[in-house]
């Protein structure tokens, strides 16, 4: 078993070395740890509990055996195609930051990760996502050669949203390792939305973002995943929160042949709050797998999770939500809810909460539900003259709205509404 996994891993490593080489900005000690992890564990397949519903090894073996793809330069008119008025628009093509075309707000430092001075990186890079905890984090550490760095300076209030437009233009099979770092210094406030647009070519994106929120920082972070059906991706998000900070994350998944999201938040200091939301609409043969981990390390923190999904066709949708409340973390409030609607008999939903609570004075609750569209509500709408199609849509909209309504940035919410509407058709 391991031998097979390792041969896939070796082949991938070999191919990746050809196209990307080793990460120039990554300390060699981290790369060493990462390579060793890969050597010992390989790329996970469905025999690993954590990847039970998401056989990445098989995908790589079948679809990304040789990485013969080419990056195609993006057209010059990105601004005409992707632009949000009243926001700061940033452009990344194939994970590389286009500084010239981007709008960079004052009191920030935004640049490609390879260009960040070592001193800035040192404190945070690989501090929140362990290089030897997961194969994709390890791969990323070993081979990332691009990515975005955002620093919001202490006390800066960025009034307009920052919209990161992720554009992928490739030919044939390509495998990206992109590494991003967002540092929100103390007392800063920002809204960051990342939109992943339908890609050309067949891509595997191993995207890893580390986020640090300083004391009293407030961050609204959205990811809109709509990279199309020849897209495969593992997105890892590792967040570390200092005292009194508030981090909200919403992920919207509308397309992708395989989408695996690993979201991990560490509440390292007291009085912090984190909100994790998700809305997925999966269809056809799509596999979407959300794993979240909220680690309450210190007292008086709050976490709130709401993941909703609509699964159609033969798609498989997974939500696995871990909450740790460590011994020290008294007065924790942790809530988690996962609600799903099955639109077809062939679709599958796996929803699994995993709570581990070692403190005694805590409030925790979790709930999951999976069912069909509410027949009573459907009949009620029809009895008022609303046709089957629109009645279903109305109900699904209502279902989705609970999540979309949590997005702080109006433009993002409107964008997501439209994508949701289109995906329903």
């Amino acid at each position, binding site marked *: 078993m391991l031998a097979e996994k390792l041969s896939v891993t070796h082949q991938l490593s070999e191919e990746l070395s050809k196209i990307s080489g080793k990460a120039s900005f990554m300390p060699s000690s981290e790369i060493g740890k990462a390579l060793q992890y890969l050597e010992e564990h390989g790329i996970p397949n469905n025999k690993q509990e954590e990847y039970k519903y998401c056989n990445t090894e098989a995908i790589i073996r079948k679809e990304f055996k040789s990485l013969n793809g080419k990056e195609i330069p993006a057209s010059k008119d990105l601004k005409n195609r992707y632009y949000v008025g009243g926001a700061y628009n940033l452009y990344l093509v194939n994970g590389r930051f286009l500084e010239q075309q981007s709008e960079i707000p004052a009191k920030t430092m935004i640049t490609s990760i390879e260009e960040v001075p070592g001193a800035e990186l040192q404190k945070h890079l690989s501090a929140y996502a362990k290089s030897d905890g997961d194969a994709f984090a390890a791969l990323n550490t070993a081979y990332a050669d691009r990515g975005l760095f955002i620093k919001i300076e202490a006390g800066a209030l960025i009034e307009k949203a920052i919209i990161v437009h992720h554009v992928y233009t490739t030919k044939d099979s390509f495998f990206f390792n992109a590494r991003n770092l967002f540092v929100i210094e103390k007392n800063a406030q920002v809204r960051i939305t990342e939109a992943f647009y339908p890609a050309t070519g067949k891509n595997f994106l191993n995207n890893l973002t580390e986020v640090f929120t300083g004391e009293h920082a407030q961050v609204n972070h959205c990811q809109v995943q709509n990279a199309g059906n020849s897209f495969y991706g593992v997105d890892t998000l590792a967040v570390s929160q200092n005292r009194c900070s508030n981090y909200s994350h919403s992920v919207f998944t509308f397309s992708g042949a395989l989408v695996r999201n690993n979201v991990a938040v560490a509440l390292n200091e007291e009085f912090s709050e984190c909100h994790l939301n998700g809305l997925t609409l999966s269809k056809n043969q799509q596999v979407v797998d959300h794993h979240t981990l909220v680690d309450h390390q210190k007292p008086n923190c709050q976490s709130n999770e709401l993941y909703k999904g609509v699964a159609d066709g033969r798609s498989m949708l997974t939500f696995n939500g871990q909450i740790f409340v460590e011994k020290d973390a008294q007065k924790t409030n942790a809530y988690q809810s996962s609600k799903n609607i099955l639109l077809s008999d062939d679709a599958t939903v796996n929803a699994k909460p995993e709570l581990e609570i070692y403190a005694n004075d805590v409030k925790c609750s979790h709930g999951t539900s999976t069912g069909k569209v509410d027949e*009573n509500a459907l009949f*009620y709408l029809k*009895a008022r003259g609303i*046709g089957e199609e629109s009645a279903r849509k109305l109900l699904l909209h209502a279902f989705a709205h609970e999540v979309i309504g949590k997005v702080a940035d109006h433009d993002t919410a409107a964008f997501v509404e439209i994508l949701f509407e289109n995906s329903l058709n």
Partner: protein
Amino acid sequence: MLSVKNLQAEINGKKILNGINLEVKAGEVHAIMGPNGSGKSTLSAVLAGREDYDVTGGEVLFNGKDLLELAPEDRAREGLFLAFQYPVEIPGVSNVNFLRTALNEIRTYRGQPAIEAKEFLALIKEKQQLVELDAKLTGRSVNEGFSGGEKKRNEIFQMAVLNPKLAILDETDSGLDIDALRIVANGVNKLKSKDNATIVITHYQRLLDYIVPDFVHILYKGKIVRSGGKELAFELEEKGYDEIKKKYDIAEV
């Protein structure tokens, strides 16, 4: 307007309607009374097109059309309205959006253009006043967190906006306080015309003081066992169903 002949229906193999006959003409008000479980809601659900029930016999004509052939939404578009005994809560769908969608789908079916935003708002406002529905409620999600009485009033509000030809009110009076009862009845009366008809299902003669029926029918074990004028309701109020039950149960043996 509505002609029900020997209608029979069952659910999960259990027979509930045992041959209903009912003729309703434009301009008429019919009351249907009967003990719990006699099949009143089943009759209204079957007429509205609830798919859980199997119609095993009989026929229903609605303005000359075979009602049982139509999808529930088309029945509504043809002008049938059911005020539910238990209105459904639909979180996330606003009352206003719901009504606009319903109204426009009905209009499209009838070959009319979508209603202008201004006209719609005026309509909503007018009907809201008619049933004295708190304006705040119309902005909220359909029935979500409404009190029992508010839900019933919302049913009549929807009826007022959609202006049906035949309205079936399934125990719209239960759960209403005296004032609300008067308001709802008043609303129904104002909407009454020589071109439309109403079927009120109720347990209480009280409602019929406000909405005066032309006919009263008693439903028992899935059959209309007696019909009469409004005085039948008084008789029931006084004597209860015992006599009817006895008589019918004996006849059954």
